[in-house]
């Protein structure tokens, strides 16, 4: 058991190291001078002395592998470095931005789950028409580009009906449209997978035996079928996390929400290497954590996995 846990931790550390390394060298390929990011961005008419001073200060005049080793060394002590463009420790920036993105992602995932499960259960019990409608809704939802969905939601609910704010506001109202934008397409994906599972479960022997034991239809659905339907959804949550982070880049830009997605986009455009690597590391860490969690939840929810382990 301990050995297994140790392997898990080692695997997680490996993922983080590889993600940092890939990003570090990936950004080296991008044309553009990081020293300029420090000096007010591209197009600044920075003097030669200023550029040289900055290169020396940030170690940019060193060979790339020296910079890399230094960076890794600092990373080892938990220091993410300092952002070129925002002149602030990366950890501080991420700390300020991560809450908004996590809240957005968590809410979107939860709403997507509710929609997907609801749709799956409703459409599997409502006969052929309901099945066709449910299936069509899922497929269409999964096929809608989220930036377009966002604009349509703003047009309908903010500009025309004036029910909901178009940009982030301190209260919960500002979260509604961004969450819907991310949740609807995601619900389409999850719904497609869950429905297959629910249909399988409805024909499975354990449901037959439950029915034979005289359990009510509602009881059967809640206790067995839903749980069975949820399993692939849980397994997909790790993937959904990455999907949501990608979506957050778009959604945070459209709805002017502070968050990691927007930070990442700006940082890439400004060639702010420490900030990009920092965000990537945090996202990778999030992915690792979510994967561990979903494995654990799957074990609890799926008796077969429990007995196997």
């Amino acid at each position, binding site marked *: 058991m301990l050995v297994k846990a140790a392997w898990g931790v080692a695997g997680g550390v490996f993922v983080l190291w590889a*993600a940092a390394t890939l990003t570090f060298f*990936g950004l080296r390929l991008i044309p553009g001078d990081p020293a300029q990011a420090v000096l007010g961005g591209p197009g600044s008419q920075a003097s030669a002395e200023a550029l040289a001073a900055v290169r020396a200060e940030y170690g940019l005049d060193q060979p790339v592998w020296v910079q890399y080793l230094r960076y890794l060394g600092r990373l080892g002590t938990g220091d993410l470095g300092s952002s070129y463009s925002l002149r602030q420790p990366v950890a501080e920036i991420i700390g300020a931005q991560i809450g908004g993105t996590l809240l957005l992602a968590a809410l979107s995932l939860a709403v997507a789950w509710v929609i997907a499960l609801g749709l799956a259960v409703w459409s599997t019990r409502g006969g052929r028409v309901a099945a066709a409608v449910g299936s069509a809704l899922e*497929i269409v939802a*999964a096929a809608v580009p989220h930036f377009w969905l966002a604009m349509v939601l703003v*047009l309908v609910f903010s500009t025309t009906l004036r029910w909901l704010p178009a940009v982030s506001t301190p209260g919960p109202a500002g979260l509604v449209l961004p969450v819907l934008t991310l949740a609807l397409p995601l619900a389409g994906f999850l719904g497609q997978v869950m429905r297959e599972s629910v249909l399988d479960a409805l024909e499975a022997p354990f449901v037959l035996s439950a029915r034979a034991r005289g359990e009510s239809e509602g009881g059967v659905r809640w206790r067995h079928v839903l749980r069975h339907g949820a399993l692939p959804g849980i397994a997909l949550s790790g993937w959904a996390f990455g999907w949501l*982070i*990608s979506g957050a880049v778009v959604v945070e*830009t459209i709805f002017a929400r502070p968050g990691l997605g927007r930070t990442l986009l700006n940082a*890439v455009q400004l060639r702010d290497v420490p900030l990009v690597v920092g965000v990537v590391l945090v996202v990778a860490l999030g992915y690792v954590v979510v994967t561990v969690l979903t494995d654990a939840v799957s074990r609890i929810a799926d008796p077969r996995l429990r007995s196997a382990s």
Partner: protein
Amino acid sequence: MLTRAPRRGARLLGPVQWVALAVVVLLLVAALAPSVLAPGDPFAIAPAEAFLSPRWGHPFGTDESGRDIYTRVVHGAAPSLVIGVAATAIGIGLALVLGLAAALLGRVVDFAVSRLLEVLFAFPGLLLALLVITVYGPGVVTSTIAVGLATAPGYARIIRAQARSVAGAPYVEAAVVLGRSRARILGRHILPNAVVPVFVLVTLGVGQAIVWAAALSYLGLGAEPPAAEWGAMLFAGKNYLATAWWMTFFPGLAIVLSAAATTVLGRLLQRREVR
């Protein structure tokens, strides 16, 4: 998901499937011979006829430069589908190599590939795409490659699992016992059974690839203007959403319809496959 038995009484071609088939045929015609459906020039501008709502002569209306949106949607099928199909092909091609290597070349390779997939998975797909595009410049080719790379790890996982389950299947074990050569086992038993279902994934992935390419266009990283590509048209039209809804509605409809139709057909193939 791929090994599920066909449901009792499930007919192969219901009305939904027929519609999907019709959409795909229409798409193929639009992609291969757009002039048959829309003889006009998708780039011809007419500033005096800008922002016309749908009407006779302009069934889908006109855009901000007076270009005919119907013509552009039809001519947009080819680049949009090429992006979708090519990105999926890149993703699945890479995934095949990685997935099969992991499943068949022993534990060390499997371990290495699995870790690599973990790392790729931990990367937000859009960041991978952003990096590729900032390095090589925006455009159809780079965004296609970017989307392909971003989708590869997902496919690779499925293929690895599939190949492993096939490799452990009784008929493969039987072949091993019978002393068949490795190459023969791979070619006769494992490849067909592990790889063929993957082609189903292609149809499922094409729609998604088109949608992601559209997202890149929104960030200004997709096809270069004035390309008649659906994502780029959506991007140009979103600024006029309140005044000229038709500029985004029709390209949006084309994306949703083609993504949905290919998904439906993909499912159909999936069922046939398991039979």
